[in-house]
């Protein structure tokens, strides 16, 4: 069994509004799975169904090959996007309470809490009330609450909102460390650069439907268009433009460089290989920059959503 979580044809409607339409997903064990989509696409609904907060109208969710059971709450750690803590309760007491709700015994909870507070350097917060903490500090507590019971599956919805860059990095490293220790992470965010950095797999949901999923690397391969960024000091500067235009689908562009060169974006026809292009370019001038343009998650996101919008 390679998938920790499998969703089969999950549908959910709220009144006449269809929030999820036959969505199927496979989240491989030990991966960081990016769940992407524009606002209102249905991500939160799917996450709530995984957490058994709402029930799907049809379809099923399997965790470790077995249908979700109420006892599975202790296998899942969930950091919701809309999150908060009891304002007038003390930090230690509150985390103990939430940990016990997740099924930890008092001594277990205390032990792990000490470990995490030590790790994040927040020992002296134990007797503070939440309302005395800043937003970022409260977020740290919430992170601890999410991971304290050592769940197999961690679900983070916009985990970095409210963190400064240093703390965001700290949390990112903690997430990656937990992944290394065997946890599987579902990660929902609008910050594409963190998806780029952290995710192995992604799924894209738009207007209640899953429109794309798979390994990030495969998706990127599928989306690449054989386009190259080229910098060249041509032998004959006057004719280079006409020559390139004639032979390839070439567009002059501008990018930062220390060389004095002509810069182009060149799309390679299906039949020819990269080597052909390089050989040709070196024959007409001094090649100073050659780079394949790999689509970023951001590009893929925008392109797919736009295509989906035009199709419907």
């Amino acid at each position: 069994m390679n998938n920790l979580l499998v969703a089969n044809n999950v549908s959910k409607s709220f009144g006449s509004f269809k929030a999820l339409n036959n969505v199927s997903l496979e989240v491989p064990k030990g991966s960081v799975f990016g769940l992407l989509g524009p606002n209102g696409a249905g991500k939160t609904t799917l996450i709530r169904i995984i957490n058994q907060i709402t029930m799907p109208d049809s379809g099923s969710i399997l965790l470790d090959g077995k249908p979700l059971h109420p006892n599975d709450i202790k296998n899942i750690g969930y950091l919701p996007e809309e999150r908060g803590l009891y304002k007038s309760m003390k930090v230690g007491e509150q985390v103990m309470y939430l940990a016990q709700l997740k099924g930890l015994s008092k001594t277990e909870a205390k032990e792990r809490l000490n470990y995490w507070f030590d790790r994040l350097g927040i020992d002296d917060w134990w007797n503070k009330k939440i309302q005395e903490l800043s937003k970022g500090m409260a977020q740290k507590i919430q992170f601890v609450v999410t991971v304290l019971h050592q769940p197999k599956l961690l679900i983070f919805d916009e985990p970095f909102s409210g963190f400064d860059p240093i703390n965001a990095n700290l949390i990112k490293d903690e997430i990656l460390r937990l992944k290394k220790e065997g946890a599987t992470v579902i990660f929902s965010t609008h910050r594409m650069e963190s998806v780029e950095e952290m995710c192995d797999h992604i799924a894209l949901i738009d207007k209640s439907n899953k429109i794309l999923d798979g390994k990030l690397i495969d998706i990127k391969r599928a989306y690449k268009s054989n386009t190259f960024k080229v910098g060249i000091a041509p032998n004959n500067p006057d004719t280079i433009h006409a020559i390139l235009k004639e032979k390839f689908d070439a567009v002059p562009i501008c990018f930062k460089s220390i060389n004095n060169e002509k810069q182009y974006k060149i799309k390679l026809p299906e039949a020819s290989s990269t080597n052909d292009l390089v050989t040709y370019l070196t024959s007409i001038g001094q090649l100073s920059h050659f780079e394949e343009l790999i689509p970023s998650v951001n590009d893929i996101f925008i392109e797919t959503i736009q295509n989906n919008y035009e199709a419907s």
Partner: protein
Amino acid sequence: MNHLQLIIKREYLNKVRNKSFIIMTFLSPLIMVLIFTLVAYLSQLNNEAVTTINILDESGLFTNSFKDSESVNYTTLENISINEAKLATETSEAYGLLYIPKAPVLDNLSESITFYSEGSPSISMMRSIENKIEGRVNVLKLEESGIDAKQIEELRINIDAKIETFKGKKTSKLGAGLKLIFGGIAGYLLFMFIIIYGNMIMRSVIEEKTSRIIEIIISSVKPIKLLLGKIFGTTLAGVTQFAVWIVIIMFLSTAISSIFGIDPSAIQSQPQEILGETSNSQQIIKDVLVEINNLPISNLIIMFIFFFIGGYLLYSSLYAAIGAAVDNETDTQQFMLPILMPLILGIYVGFFTVMDNPHGIVSQVFSYIPLTSPVVMLMRIPFGVPLWQQILSLVILFATFMGTVWFASKIYRVGILMYGKKASYREIIKWLKY
């Protein structure tokens, strides 16, 4: 510890440790006792003040009719004219002047009697003066017609019918009054409890919504468990508070009445005056004790507990549902009315209809309707309600409670995760189908 226990414990400790809760627990009985003491003290002051009324009786017929009482002194003015008397009264301490002119015919007399004073005299004072004059005129008229007034007085018979049930249980009007007091206290207590602690539950639900912790909690426990935990936890805190209140009030009132000699319970003596026609206070106490013994005490206590719990749970689950449906307290108004209406209706039906006819059709119907039954049935029970009726009413009550908990948890499930959306009735009906 299982989830429900954990939640109850947290809710309880959270309430009990809350500063405003602690302050209210100790301050409100203090304020209550102070207010009662003040009222008692003031009314004592009021009673102690003696009013003087001057009387100018030119007819000479009322010489013995006006006798000094505890609060009114009558001074008879003689051998002066009415204008002199008015002047004398105005400049003196006296409150007013009663002027009875000379009249050859008794019928004319009543029209020409006048009371002069600075402001308007109280209705009760005027009535007492009028009664005295009427009584005397009646006697005079009887004599005029040749009838002996003393004979008539002797012929008057006072009827005090005995009340007895078919099973031979003796009771009295005093007993009926006591039953009303018992029922009234029980109903009123429930009413207060629901309003105070129902609101508290509602606020704690709203607090979880506004602090956004709800989604974290709800991914660990089922909404219905959270709902029940909240209700029970808050109820326990409420019972604690009530118990502290009772102890403090009892302690303070004994302390105050022994130190200052003011009896806060004196204010409540009015209904007793209406009920008990005997003036002997020891006799009254004896009668009251006998009547209390006659009440179905064990039935009353057991049913009080059941109806109290049932009624309170029913209403508090509705309060929790309201809390889940709204975003902040100001939005609760539109939903509060339909909850408060039956509650207030229950109190009104209890105090007016049950008082009038405890086993009439209206009282019976309202003692089965679950939203009013706790109050109305509690008021009826002292008058003797067949056990099967009590049990039927309880069954309906608890069945409805199950229904409302289901209904409330449905709204709760959906409502707690709805932020920023203003709930309307139509919206809520839609939620039930989710």
